[in-house]
């Protein structure tokens, strides 16, 4: 959870070598293993639904890849399922992710939070400043939010479920939503954790998963 996307790529590059798996390399002066990943997981976020495509020089059973990689992956990173990628949903088409954000309910702020969520839902536009290479620009985040809801609320805190856009059509991280909600609700959240639960293609009605 505390490592960056580039760190994860390096973890797999080395794990493939330790597992002695025949991963294909790009041609050229600086060969890289042929792997593609789903969009970067923000540092500090845990997840149970990351996907990668990888290409091999020879035919190999997905199950073998999974077992051999799991033998050499560090604690905290595990392959849950492996299948042949041909004829499946390409990773580049994924456009949605669900996050669970758990915050402390220090002084019974639940009502304020629910109001803030409602206000976001009813808004047509909320602009935030986004840093890019060409400088700061204003982005409307409303089209990037599918839904926000309170999942449960108890003595351990409040769990919020956020379904947000990722991928080529634009993406937004849950921490940005949190800061928007904080601004509207007028108090600062004590975050326990942020967890990415699912990544999928959302066609407007249903979720389609890569595996």
């Amino acid at each position, binding site marked *: 959870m505390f490592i960056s996307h580039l760190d994860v790529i*390096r*973890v797999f590059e080395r794990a493939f*070598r330790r597992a002695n798996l025949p991963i294909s390399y790009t041609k050229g002066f*600086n060969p890289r293993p042929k792997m593609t990943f789903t969009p970067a997981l923000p540092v500090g976020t845990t997840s149970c639904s990351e996907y990668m495509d990888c290409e091999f020089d020879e035919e190999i059973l997905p199950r073998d890849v999974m077992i051999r990689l799991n033998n050499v992956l560090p604690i905290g990173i595990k392959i849950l399922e492996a299948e042949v990628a041909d004829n499946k949903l390409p990773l580049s088409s994924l456009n949605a992710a669900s996050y669970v954000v758990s915050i402390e309910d220090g002084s019974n702020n639940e009502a304020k939070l629910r109001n803030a969520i409602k206000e976001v839902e009813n808004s047509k536009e909320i602009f935030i400043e986004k840093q890019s290479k060409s400088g700061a620009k204003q982005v409307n985040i409303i089209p990037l939010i599918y839904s926000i809801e309170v999942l449960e609320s108890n003595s351990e805190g409040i769990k919020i479920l956020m379904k947000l856009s990722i991928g080529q059509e634009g993406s937004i991280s849950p921490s940005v939503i949190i800061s928007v909600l904080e601004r509207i609700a007028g108090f600062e959240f004590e*975050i326990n954790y942020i967890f990415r639960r699912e990544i999928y293609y959302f066609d407007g009605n249903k979720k389609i998963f890569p595996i």
Partner: protein
Amino acid sequence: MTLDRLLEKILPKVSKPARYTGNEYNSILKRKEDIDVHVALAFPDIYEVGMSHLGIKILYHLLNEDSTIYAERVFAPWVDFEKLMREYDIPLFSLETKTPIKDFDFLGFTLQYEMSYTNIINMLELARIPIFSSERCDKDPLVIAGGPCAYNPEPLGDIIDFFVIGEAEEAIVEIMDLYKIFKANGRPRRDFLTEVAKIKGVYVPSLYNVTYNENGTLRSILPKSNEFPAKIEKRLIANLNEAYYPTDFIVPYINIVHDRAPLEIFRGCSHGCRFCQAGMIYRPVREKSADILEKMAKDIIASTGYGELSLTSLSTSDYSQLKQLTESLTEKFRESKVGLSLPSLRIDAFSLELAKKVQEIRKSGLTFAPEAGTQRLRDIINKGVTEDDLLKSAHDAFLSGWNTVKLYFMIGLPGETLEDIKGIAELANKVVDVYRKIHGNTKGLRVNVSTSTFVPKPFTPFQWHPQITLEEIDERQRLLKSLFRKNKNISYNWHEGKLSFLEAVFSRGDRKLGKVLKAAHDNGCKFDGWNDIFSFEKWVSAFDESGIDPNFYAYRYREKDEIFPWDIIDIGINKRFLQKELEKSEKGETTPDCRIRCSGCGVNRLEAGDYCENKIEI
């Protein structure tokens, strides 16, 4: 709240949280109930620097081979996390099991750089361990240290309980064996210190009386009892082929400074450059055999998955079987796309041919280290490189397609005049001319000149010399800046002079400096090697408050018969040899490489060394 929960909450707020979380591949987990001795291996800098250091890796895996010992790691927290640690009252903890450092049996520091000393004090404070050795009690860990700076242990003499001088692979095991007996019998720390002082290579400063002359120089360092050695002989691994070397290195998640698998090919250096401490203290040269290295390389890559293997030593080109080794490794790793990196390579036709095969070098450009701008000065420092060598190598490199070279020099070397400084600029210009002659113009050429200020080091022929003053440093750097301003192919950068001044103070310092370190720490000094944090003003007031004159250490020309704080250490080389080298330097005479002819430094009495058989006596 448990520490784990608390960390989960606050680590997202700091930069690079993986510096503090551990759990990297190949890191070692043991149950604390199963062990007898708990050792915290500490590096007084951030994770990325400490994890790049070979010595701490060797000791980590070596100690953990013993199932009754658990060695964990701890690094200096970066300022953002330190602030939160203090705010949330978190004591310094180990990376593997998050155990408070105060609960360990040993806390062992690696001393790589004098300007990390304030970090040692800061880490002790964060660990809630008393800073001075005399204030610690039986329940505190034994605070120990080793590494190159330990060759002059005195500045930390009041802070470190004991030092291990030299290569520690054997000594550390002897120390652990002794400690197990003492711990099993519940004997006090005092008794252990008097016993451990008898192990070869161990220096317990509290068991030695230090006296000074009226002029502030050292009069004597004498053992309080004749059971303790009058001189501490450095430890040395005579046969590296039989020495322990790990193959299952920890693979960090985050990018570290040297993010590759290290394969040590030999220790020691035969060149005898007169400014170089490493060249003296690590003598004699001991190579590992290519056959053993090939096997190790294969095991290391299989166990770590690293995409790059680095052949490490003080001077890679000197390795007698370099061609055989690099050819077989390139062949072996072609399939799995593992690159070789060859740092510290002397640039010549052979190494360029090698470099072409070994892609990693191309990215980083080539580094030449003539060290001084004129032949006269290169002879004084015994750097056996001529201008012709350099220009020919540059010529070969440019012909082979390189267009970026780095030239590394020192300023303030003994006997240096402004002519030598101008010589640096002239040499750089000649390199540009070589390029122009080949390509017709200088398009695409980058010559990066960098200078650092010479710091006289213990156990070198220049240990008697003063450092040049801050004004002189400034003057010489300004001269170079003006000389390079005209040429747009040359860029010039320099090492902060004030930092070099403090390095000079502490590298040849004595025990009186302990209170300066404490005062500097209390003024807020830490991470002094980091430009954006370093504050010279805080150091100046630390010296003032302690009533210590730093100039006494940096600027004094030491008398030939002066007793030095580091004379308590015996590195195997005779002081007489160093003095003779100093005299030769004053006459501009050079001394040949050990491989050509023995010059009788005396290290042969340690009964090791590939070139020490045909020794001479002086």
